[in-house]
């Protein structure tokens, strides 16, 4: 009967075969040695569209999305409201079904949208150059470490010890290629701030880069970022910072404290969490020739048409990339997360400076309110670190008679998804978990969490 996605029906295919002098379709596969031919049919069912829809809907309905549960998870994947028009516009099939804009004349729309994404990220971070996206924050960080090593021709990269284990694992894999050494710097036990004396001890002529996160993985701000940058630069190292871009509606941009490379997770800018992917790796840097020529991934540049009049956009500095430079490319990345970048451009264009500020303030004040409410509960230490926080915070449960995992199980019975348990990542914190609030949480939501938590801890006594 044919298939709806295959225009040339079996009858037409027969005619076409005849026209090109083939007896049957098997002739077209005669070059595959018999010994490697598959001698059976693949074992996969075929469904009609309504059956496929029903099946997939049934599968997905067995999930309990964060729109139904009251969730306080963040940790690098932050649920925010995605305005309806963001999805609607990114779903336009001219964007959705296009390839990498290798033909700029026919792809000005995507090129300009990506140039706007790069530009908006630059304004947000205070950098001059941003690429058109990496896979996610973790791979952006990996690429940043490699770039530091290429620029400085040094082989050591310093990172904070309070960073996500998953992100660190990705970084290790990226660093392993050229054999970079990663050194984890300690922190002040009460404030979580990077240990500057350890940093100074480590810094020498072999340090390619110093990395911090601001806000840190556990939600607190790094208040000595300025100083860290100065110390790093003095030793000839590059200064790299990882960010949650929503926080930059409120916080000082990295460009204001001497950062050379900014990485981060762009998902909260108009992209749903989607079980952790598609994500959006932010990668931006200063306009320094030494840096720009070493940037990984795609850079969209403004230029003019050959008539020298009309403004247009092209993929720039392509000689850095794998399709030209092959094994000497700055990275192997080709397909990236472009459409997520377009979503981010639409999102940032819609929020503007005031919207983003207001949003960041709501996120921060919700966290502040939640920390106060939770800290008032007997047995909880909230936040663990005495420092300013943005929208995430770590809770200590060492004085409670339950574990983070057990607390979450009890909360789940009440329709609440608690924060991420941290025992595996940071055993030194004892029982602890990482919580997040955004504009999605109402005051009542936070009150509900606090009441439920108090009840559960009381019962566990």
């Amino acid at each position, binding site marked *: 009967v044919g298939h709806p996605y295959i225009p040339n029906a079996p009858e037409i295919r027969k005619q076409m075969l005849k026209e090109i002098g083939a007896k049957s379709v098997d002739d077209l596969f005669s070059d595959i040695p018999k010994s490697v031919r598959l001698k059976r049919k693949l074992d996969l069912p075929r*469904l009609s569209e309504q059956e*496929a829809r029903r099946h997939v809907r049934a599968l997905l309905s067995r999930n309990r999305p964060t729109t139904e549960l009251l969730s306080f998870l963040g940790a690098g*994947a932050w649920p925010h409201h995605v305005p309806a028009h963001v999805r609607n516009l990114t779903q336009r099939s*001219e964007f959705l079904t296009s390839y990498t*804009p290798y033909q700029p004349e026919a792809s000005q729309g995507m090129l300009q*949208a990506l140039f706007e994404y790069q530009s908006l990220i630059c304004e947000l971070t205070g950098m001059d150059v941003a690429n058109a996206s990496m896979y996610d924050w973790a791979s952006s960080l990996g690429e940043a470490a490699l770039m530091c090593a290429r620029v400085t021709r040094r082989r050591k990269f310093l990172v904070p010890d309070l960073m*996500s284990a998953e992100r660190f694992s990705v970084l290790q894999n990226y660093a392993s290629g050229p054999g970079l050494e990663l050194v984890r710097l300690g922190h002040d036990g009460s404030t979580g701030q990077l240990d500057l004396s350890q940093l100074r001890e480590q810094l020498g002529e072999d340090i390619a880069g110093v990395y911090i996160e601001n806000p840190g993985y556990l939600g607190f701000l790094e208040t000595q970022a300025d100083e860290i940058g100065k110390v790093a630069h003095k030793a000839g190292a590059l200064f790299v910072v990882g960010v949650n871009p929503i926080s930059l509606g409120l916080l000082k941009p990295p460009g204001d404290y001497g950062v050379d490379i900014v990485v981060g997770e762009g998902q909260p800018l108009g992209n749903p969490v989607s079980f952790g*992917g598609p994500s959006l790796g932010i990668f931006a840097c200063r306009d320094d020739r030494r840096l720009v020529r070493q940037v990984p991934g795609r850079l969209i540049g*403004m230029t003019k048409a050959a008539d020298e009049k009309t403004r247009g956009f092209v993929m720039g500095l392509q000689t850095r990339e794998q399709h030209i430079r092959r094994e000497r490319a700055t990275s192997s990345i080709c397909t990236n997360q472009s459409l997520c970048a377009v979503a981010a451009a639409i999102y940032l264009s819609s929020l503007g400076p005031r919207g983003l500020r207001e949003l960041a303030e709501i996120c921060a*004040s919700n966290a502040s309110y939640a920390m106060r409410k939770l800290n008032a509960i007997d047995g909880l230490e909230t936040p663990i670190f005495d420092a300013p926080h943005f929208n995430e915070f770590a809770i200590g449960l060492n004085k409670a008679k339950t574990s983070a995992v057990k607390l979450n199980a009890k909360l789940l019975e009440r329709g609440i998804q608690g924060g991420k348990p941290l025992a595996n990542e940071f055993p030194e914190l004892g029982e602890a978990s990482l919580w997040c609030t955004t504009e999605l949480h109402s005051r009542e939501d936070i009150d509900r969490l606090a009441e439920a938590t108090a009840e559960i801890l009381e019962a566990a006594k």
Partner: protein
Amino acid sequence: MTGYRQARWGAEDKLEPLVFELGDKRRVGYSLPPKHSKSFKIPKKLLRTELNLPELSEPEVARHFTRLSQMNYGVDSGIYPLGSCTMKYNPKISEELAGLEGASSLHPYQSEETVQGALELMYRLERALAEVAGVARVSLHPSAGAHGEFLAMLIARKYHSSNGDGKRTQVIVPDSAHGTNPASAAMAGYEVVVVPSNERGRVDLDALKATVSDRTAALMLTNPNTLGLFEDEIEEMVKVVHDAGGLLFYDGANLNGIMGKARPGDMGFDIVHFNLHKTFGTPHGGGGPGSGPVGVRKKLEKFLPAPLVEHDAKRDRYYLDYDRPDSTGRIQAFHGNFGVLVKAYTYILMMGSEGLEEATEAAVLNANYIMRKLLKVKGYDLKFDASGPCKHEVVFSAESLKDGTGVTARDVAKRLLDYGMHAPTYYFPPIVPEALMIEPTESEPREGLDRFVEALEKIAGEARSDPDRVRSAPTATAIGRLDEVKASREPILSWRMYCKNRE
């Protein structure tokens, strides 16, 4: 006149303004809930004082990005014969399902009991991909093809080091390989060694024999290769590499040419990657997000990154298995591009075994149809073996056209845009002079193929009668040819750089 005209929004000297040139200080394009608590304790010195973002209302945003989209060509616009990119139709049902809250509003750290459907979907997708490629297990983590290649190289490294074999520092790639192959091998710390193709457009077996040694970690190969030709000596190649102690990596970019006909695992490949955004119908989105799962044979299973999705049959529960002590470690912070996985799974359901095989047959037939028709057109030739069939794509050379008229493959490609057709990949693979790499996919109807060949024939005629018309193409797109040299010499990569330059 070709009768085609792409939308062009804008004024005389520029297209649609940049978003920074739109809007007004008092406009609002958002609505937020009220702030219910005013306080947060962040010292003033950590706060920013200014943020230069544009201020637009929602209708302006919608209009701006709609206009941009209209100046962009996609698979839904017309033929998209971009070689090695498999620009097939992207089913709308997949978009609908991936957009459901049961997929889009899941958090990667939710308790397993609240994401059973997602885990089952991943488990089933893994089984389906393993069946198509003939491998034991598949990691769904990689976000794109090159990401998958990188993971494959990490697996190869881990395998050799687990054998106490530290000497294997080289990865072999054919001269016809995708650029990502050598780049990914280099990222994993390997030295890249190139092996030449023979006059039949296949890897030169003798050269391969001379290249392998006890330093060989792996051979990276796509089959069908980038010339669209099946590497028919694959079994000998596998033996040569395996005998030398190396592994074989299959670049899955060209899997659309063999589904249901042959499987990389059965050919002897040890590590296989998939491009779900090529073979399995998920959209490219102008350059991503894609998904590049990696499958391995049994002996390499333990090196796949944690976690894998497992099924506890007794309790009928799906779970994430993090207990993988030999794993390579992560290349992705979470579980891969899950939204893309939902789309690929839906596509596989809609195709089934028969549909996938039919897609391959129709795609290969379309490529052969173009090959046979275009061979009759003066100016376009095959540089390698033209006796047998091609697979999903075919690489022509416009060298004779260039010699006769001065019109290049690039000019031909640009002129095709004027006919409302996307250009083939050109100047790749590098072993074909004036290459035009054509992959029509199964999504193109016969009359579309006919029109494409006719257009190429007309362009060859124009090249002879009016070469300037071809050289000055395109003129029917939103903008004509762009100054790419200027873009690289004086890079303007953001609005900020543009404003600084202007000052």
